């Protein structure tokens, strides 16, 4: 894998994250931080995959990383965690598998349909588990909740 392969998808994610941030009305000051989250999330996903881990493990790791990033940054800057979390999570959404699931259902190709459907569920579950683990850990750490 070349340098290009690592960074190009992450840069695309960076741009997409900024655009998503505008949709969610995140103001410019926080937009950059959120976009860096999206960039880092994708970079971690690619690096984990390059080490030979499955897509599910990679998604889990990336979701874990982005949640820790979002929780720490949100606490430091005293803003809602969602501002950083939502934008970072979106590039992990398994768009390709969801699409494949739909298409194969129409084609009547049940074998591939079942496979892509299971993949979709597994990746969604991996993302949820990543967010769950990181957020729960952070909740344990904080003594007093700040709003």
């Amino acid at each position, binding site marked *: 894998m070349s340098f290009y392969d690592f960074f190009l998808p992450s840069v695309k994610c960076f741009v*997409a994250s*900024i655009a998503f941030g*505008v*949709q969610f*009305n*995140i103001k410019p000051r926080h937009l950059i931080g959120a976009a860096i989250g999206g960039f880092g999330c994708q970079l971690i996903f690619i690096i984990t995959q390059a080490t030979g881990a499955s897509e599910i493990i990679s998604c889990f790791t990336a979701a874990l990383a982005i949640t820790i990033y979002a929780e720490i940054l949100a606490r430091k800057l005293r803003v*809602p965690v969602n501002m950083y979390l939502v934008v970072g999570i979106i590039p992990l959404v398994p768009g390709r598998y969801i699409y494949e699931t739909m298409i194969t259902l129409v084609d009547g190709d049940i074998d591939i349909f079942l496979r892509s459907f299971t993949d979709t569920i597994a990746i969604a579950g991996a993302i949820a588990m990543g967010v769950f683990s990181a*957020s*729960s850990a952070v909740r344990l750490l904080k003594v007093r909740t700040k*709003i």
Partner: protein
Amino acid sequence: MSGIELLNMVSDIGSMMIECGAEIYRAEETIDRITLAYGYSAEVFIIPTSLIITINSAGTPLTKAMRIKARHTNLDRVDKLNNLSRFICVQKPDAAEINRHIEAIRQRSVYGFTLKLISYYAVGGTFAIFFGGGFMDAVFAGVAAVLIILMEMAIERVRPSTFFRCVVCSLMTASLAIVVTRLGLTESFDKIIIGASMTMVPGITITNCMRDFIAGDFLAGLYTLTEAIIVAVGMAIGSVSAIAVLTV
């Protein structure tokens, strides 16, 4: 501040927070803190579609129930309300001043409509490339994404259900992608559909769902989970029917 004034104020703040995409526990905690700051105690029950607040005012319970109908993601407003509640807890201003602040937050919009449209175009375009599409795919995915938001605004008047809205929008996206491919402008329609559909992914709903579950608000979590599934199914049905009809 009298109990009734306080009740009206916190219900305004709480419902606006939920409307704009805050988690349940955040809204509940905010209301709790504000009422405590003025020396009252409150019982709060919030789910994504309604909120019930009871304030104990000198032995007399005052209750307000509110239905939350509109849903529009505006994370900046959540942040502003958060800061406002922190300000209220420290300064304890009077009702008129707080209402002025709430009104100012309601008026405020970070980005204009044109910039929003550009951002939709960018989301569609970049995701089309991200999922392996070419330049022309990105151009048309952007167009489809902008059409999605325009369509959402056009059918807003008939108060569509979430499911209907998703079916209509994805039907339109898929039809556009297939027509463009038939005309020979792009090689395949799948990248356009995936890219444009990313604008409809209920990102805030999915995230809030997970965060509600973590916070222990299982009822709210189930509601948002159902909403996310309905959106996904609606999108699938819309694109699938367009593909099934137009590619035979």
